[in-house]
């Protein structure tokens, strides 16, 4: 799948300077997109129960600081079911999903990446907060 084709199918867009003629690789393993990381669901230690179908227009996982730059998850209809805010001892997980065909994670600045069929969950990134407060989540 070329980036241009993927954008066409989803109606999403990325910044102009990203090369649209590159093939979007499908990765079967850990991968990061900016402040998000995709991990095998096995690492979470339990399986969520209340799944729902990923809507055709995809689902925004998280938006950046200024309200733009969302990470959006998209897939062909009927190939992906998901749930949001699964319990996570690290309190970083924002979504989990199971897919029978590649799903795509798209971001205006980072471009697109493919996730191989399997069961996955997505965590945000954190850094140390000011003073002695608890860590804060990164929003890029």
């Amino acid at each position, binding site marked *: 799948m070329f980036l241009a084709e993927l954008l066409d199918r989803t*109606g*999403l*867009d*990325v*910044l*102009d*300077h*990203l090369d649209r003629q590159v093939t979007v*690789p499908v*990765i*079967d*393993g*850990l*991968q*990061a*997109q*900016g402040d998000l*990381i995709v*991990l095998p669901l096995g*690492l979470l230690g339990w399986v969520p129960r209340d799944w729902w179908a990923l809507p055709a227009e995809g689902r*925004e996982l998280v938006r950046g600081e*200024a*309200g*733009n*730059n*969302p990470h*959006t998850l998209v897939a062909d209809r009927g190939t992906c079911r998901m749930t949001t805010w699964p319990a*996570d001892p*690290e309190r*970083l997980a924002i979504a989990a999903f199971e897919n029978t065909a590649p799903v795509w994670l798209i*971001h*205006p*600045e*980072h*471009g*697109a*990446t493919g996730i191989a069929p399997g069961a996955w969950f997505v*965590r945000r*990134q*954190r*850094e*140390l*907060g*000011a*003073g*002695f407060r608890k860590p*804060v989540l*990164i929003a*890029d």
Partner: protein
Amino acid sequence: MSASRRPDRRIPDISRWLSHAFRTDPADRPAAETAISRLYALLGEPPPRFVWAPSPNAAVPHLRPSPVPSTLPLEARMATRAAELRARRRRIPPEERQWIRDVAGLVRAAIPQPLGLYWYGQQDAYWVEPDSGDPELELWAALVRSCGWWWPREGVCVVAERPLAIRTDDERRLHSATGPAVVYPDGWGVHAWHGTRVPSWVIEDPTADRINREFNVEVRRCAVEHLGWSAYIEQAGLRILSRAPDPGNPGCELRLYDLPAQKWHAPSRLLLAVNGSVERDGTRRRYGLRVPAEFDHPLDAAGWSYGLTGAQYAGLRRRT
């Protein structure tokens, strides 16, 4: 502009209308005074005396709440009518409304004093719709075209000039790397870094020393971005503890630095990483994350930022 969805077809003259919010020419005083006098007349009030201020900040000393006799003060009655007018308006897309409110809000935040009830004049473009055919709304539209912020009070109306300059980045956020992002005829202005309001030193003279003394995380982040991570590390004399290839990000390195102990801050270290994707100018942006001081290896520190061990993070296949 990094829109997520391709923008809908906008009403073509809406963007022209909204550009009034960013006008920097002198106010059209006769037009503004006429429109305001008519709004006073709609409240059954005689035309006020006008006081023109060279900036919203310069308006502050002139502001006194109207005396409250038996009725509501004039500005409260004005607000009631304005609220009725704006309740019926829906033609300006929400993201456009938000964009202009953010700009005005950032200027407002730079004035510490309370301002009472006031309106944005040119920046009321976010809710006032042009050519509505409603004679009362047309008066507000005239103010969008002719002046800056204004404060209606009993017998007197304080009106501010428009700015001399308003500078934004290509995502339309207030931003200037060389001076104030908004500056008014009296020299008063607001410094901003990509939509975040910052003290002037962040823009005009960012140094590692000032950054280390700054308590606000956001201000520190902006100042480091402006100074550049490499320059910051060099000036601050940060000692490198360890470095390692960034898994999934070929050719890039993770570096872990010791941060000087800071009063009132938990001991921490700085992990310097490089973005997985290129910027518009072809470079890759560096970014620094503060991590607990217990980590000696960059992979452990990077892993912690995602709730993973260093060994788990080492299995990263790709970073975009």
